[in-house]
């Protein structure tokens, strides 16, 4: 009898659950843990994912990407397009219209002036704005009335959704930041630590690199949201302990980016307090081939420059063979489990930009050997191939990370099966990705034969991403070793096609060119050897409802919809 009543009660509670939480601040506290701690809440001063995602609870852009990579309006009524007249036919301007009645958390109205100010803030010289690439080609911003913003570009912009779109480019309040333009941006500690926003939460206390406490925004546009009255955002530690805190001890409700071996995550999920969730974006773990000779015998200044092509890897057949020897499916199984899939593409998503190229998935050791034989590399002493007295020996570097070191060990073994000797090297991430021109160990300097890391692009358009592999973007002494084309890949046909992509507005045409570019650099030239399309694994406690994992924008994009399952 009693049990039955209880069960009935539970069913009833489930049935009315959506109604029960439809009131602001009734669900108590929600606790989020990020194993990298946010150091600032202003995405214009730090592009770190941790900072962008933490600030996305407070400040919002005009439009965001949803979990499918589609644009959804946030502070505006609709997404401007050429069809609805929001984007001019010549693609040189875009007109946004703010929703009516949106308030800042301090109760003042959001106006077009705030939006314009945001652009001025980021475009101010000496400001060191991390997102200034989002405002590339912006010529002027006009605000004909309180709610209308017209962004004018100096040249046709086929994809005008960069400024004020996505977690990287939220709208900040002019009144709060008006004295923080240019060089002064660095000094506005109070504003950078507690921006006034339109998001579901407001900052009550910010302890940099430690913990942020927030409370529900009284002026949030949906009166029923957020369901939680307060929010605790803890940072620091490592992925394993964050996963444990959500799935095993139940101390926290949401843990971000659990880069752990699949079996470790599975074990944690058995704790029964939380569930891992995963989603895919554009992050691809890849091996980059050095097209130039990194030999230490070359004088500094010529080492690893276009002057000396790589003695082994310049041969396409060699690069192909190295790729064929790799079993990507096994890599995924060991390193990422459900959060990874084998890929042959640099641009794995969105679907329309992804080439249907799957040639590389099947491992082909015999084929690889045959290719190397054909290229003149013959098996010599100790099973290591040789050609003209030169041994086939590669230095393979990557950043320190447990999964990457497992990958290195596996690939080393596969390569040794085809007669290639590999020396492994791991470098601490803060040096490897640091870009210090004085250090020999940065990924740009590439004083190794092959290197492995992961990269992705913001938003859904790969133009800028593919544009990184033009000849002029090769890091070299003259550029202080800066530049994204770390392979020193150089093909005039590729450069031309990139230029054409920049001029093409029609979306299907763009997709076609992007696919072609992707294939040129992957399957046709094997300059980049994609390995794994890496998803994101996060975890939420079993009592946290409404979580939708989004890899195209901040993971906390829909925190306003989160609620406590009762």
């Amino acid at each position, binding site marked *: 009898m009693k049990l039955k009543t209880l069960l009935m009660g539970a069913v009833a509670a489930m049935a009315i659950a959506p109604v029960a939480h439809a009131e602001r601040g009734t669900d108590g506290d929600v606790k989020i843990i990020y194993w990298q701690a946010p*150091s600032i809440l202003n995405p214009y001063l730090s592009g770190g994912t941790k900072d962008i995602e933490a600030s996305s609870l407070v400040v919002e852009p005009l439009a965001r990407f949803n979990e499918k990579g589609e644009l959804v309006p946030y502070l505006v009524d609709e997404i401007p397009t050429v069809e609805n007249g929001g984007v001019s036919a010549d693609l040189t301007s875009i007109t946004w219209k703010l929703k009516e009645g949106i308030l800042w958390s301090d109760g003042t109205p959001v106006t077009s002036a705030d939006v314009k100010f945001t652009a001025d803030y980021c475009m101010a010289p000496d400001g060191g704005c*991390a997102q200034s690439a989002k405002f590339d080609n912006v010529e002027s911003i006009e605000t004909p009335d309180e709610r209308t913003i017209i962004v004018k570009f100096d040249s046709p912009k086929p994809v005008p959704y960069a400024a004020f779109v996505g977690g990287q480019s939220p709208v900040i309040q002019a009144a709060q930041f008006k004295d923080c333009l240019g060089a002064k941006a660095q000094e506005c500690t109070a504003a950078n630590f507690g921006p006034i926003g339109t998001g579901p939460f407001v900052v009550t*206390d910010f302890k*940099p*690199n430690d913990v942020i406490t927030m409370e529900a925004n009284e002026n949030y546009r949906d009166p029923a949201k957020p369901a939680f009255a307060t929010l605790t955002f*803890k940072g620091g530690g490592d992925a394993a302990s964050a996963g444990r805190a959500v799935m095993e001890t139940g*101390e926290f409700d949401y843990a971000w980016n659990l880069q752990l071996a699949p079996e470790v995550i599975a074990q944690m999920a058995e*704790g029964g307090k939380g569930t891992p969730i995963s989603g895919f974006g554009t992050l691809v773990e890849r091996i980059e081939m050095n097209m130039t000779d990194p030999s230490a015998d070359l004088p500094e200044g010529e080492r690893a420059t276009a002057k000396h092509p790589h003695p082994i890897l310049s041969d396409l057949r060699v690069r192909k063979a190295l790729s064929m020897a790799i079993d990507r499916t096994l890599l995924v199984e060991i390193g990422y489990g459900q959060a990874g899939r084998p890929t042959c593409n640099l641009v794995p998503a969105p679907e329309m930009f992804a080439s249907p190229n799957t040639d590389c998935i099947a491992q082909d050791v015999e084929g690889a050997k045959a290719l190397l034989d054909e290229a003149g590399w013959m098996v010599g002493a100790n099973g290591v191939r040789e050609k003209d007295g030169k041994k086939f020996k590669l230095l393979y570097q990557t950043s320190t990370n447990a999964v990457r070191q497992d990958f290195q060990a596996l690939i080393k073994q596969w390569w040794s099966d085809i007669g290639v000797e590999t020396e492994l090297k791991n470098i601490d991430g803060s040096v490897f990705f640091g870009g210090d021109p004085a250090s020999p160990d940065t990924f740009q300097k590439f004083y190794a034969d092959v290197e492995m890391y992961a990269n992705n692009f913001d938003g859904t358009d790969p133009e800028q991403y593919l544009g990184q592999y033009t000849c002029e973007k090769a890091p070299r002494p003259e550029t202080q070793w800066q530049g994204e084309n770390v392979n020193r890949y150089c093909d005039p046909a590729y450069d031309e096609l990139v230029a054409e992509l920049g001029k093409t507005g029609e979306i299907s045409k763009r997709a076609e060119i992007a696919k072609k570019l992707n294939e040129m650099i992957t399957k046709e030239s094997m300059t980049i050897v994609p390995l794994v399309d890496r998803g994101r694994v996060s975890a939420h406690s079993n009592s946290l409802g409404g979580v939708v994992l989004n890899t195209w924008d901040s993971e906390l994009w829909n925190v306003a919809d989160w609620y406590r399952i009762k």
Partner: protein
Amino acid sequence: MLTFLIRRLFTAIPTLVLISLIIFLLLDLAPGDPLADQPLSIPPDVRQKMRDALGLDSPAYIRYLLWAKQFFWVEPLVFVDWVTGTGFSEGMQRIVSWQFRAPVFDIIIQRLPQTLWVVGLAYLVGVLIALPIGIISAYRQYSWFDQVGTFVSMIGFSVPPFFSGVLMIVFFAIMLPWFPSIYDTTLVVNDFESFGQQIRQMTLPVMVLALQTTAQLSRFMRASMLDNLNHDYVRTARAKGMTEKVVLLVHVLRNSMIPVVTVIALGIPSIFGGAIITEQIFKVNGLGQLLITAIYANDLPMVQTLAFIFAVLIVLCNLIADMLYGLLDPRIRYD
């Protein structure tokens, strides 16, 4: 002795200035870039502008002099203002962290409570346990107490905190959910309940850290006691009819304290340095975590300031140790 103290304090100043310069040069030379943690999707030209905004383009000596001025002049003024409510430091540029764009000292002060609670208390607990263990182990050399003590302390020292910390969490936070695995730095102790919570969340990290201190210190205490127990003066004292307690705790202990005092003094600055690994595991986010994240992020003003404060403490503590030598053994003379 007072004149000695004053003279030593004065000679410490040039040493410290030299140390600060060497730390600065070292950090400047070390590979790394304050934008290392920024995503690769930020293009190189934007990175260059961000670097310029941090003032990285000015030459090294100017950056050092600027830091020195801020550390030795502006920050003390800020302190004076804070105490007296005056406005001497208005409009002066304080030492600003590159990660946070906030004054370095504000953050250090924010981190002090949890560091002192956890690392400081662990050190105190470790010292208080280690001394008696060392004394008894030496007095009853090769007894079962000594054997167990040796065994436990050697294992305790061989097991690094990255392992013992996780082991503690697995046992005492997951299998037996007695203690939290994550330290809550926002907890305000204002009543009995929150005090209990504070004790609970400190227990695991304090245990891990105290184990290390105890292991190390008890070994030194034991060895030093053993050295002295065989000296003639001990025999003399016993022959004179002193009780064992007096012989042991007054005569032998006092003479055995020199190496122990040295080790304790060396450990005190490292309380301020925090416990990097243990803090990370339990997410205490004290000064150790602050230092290591600053190093990874190449936040030079932060690292420089923390390292220099650390240096000051080292010089001071070692000076105190030197003074204590004189008290423990009056034959050690200062002149």
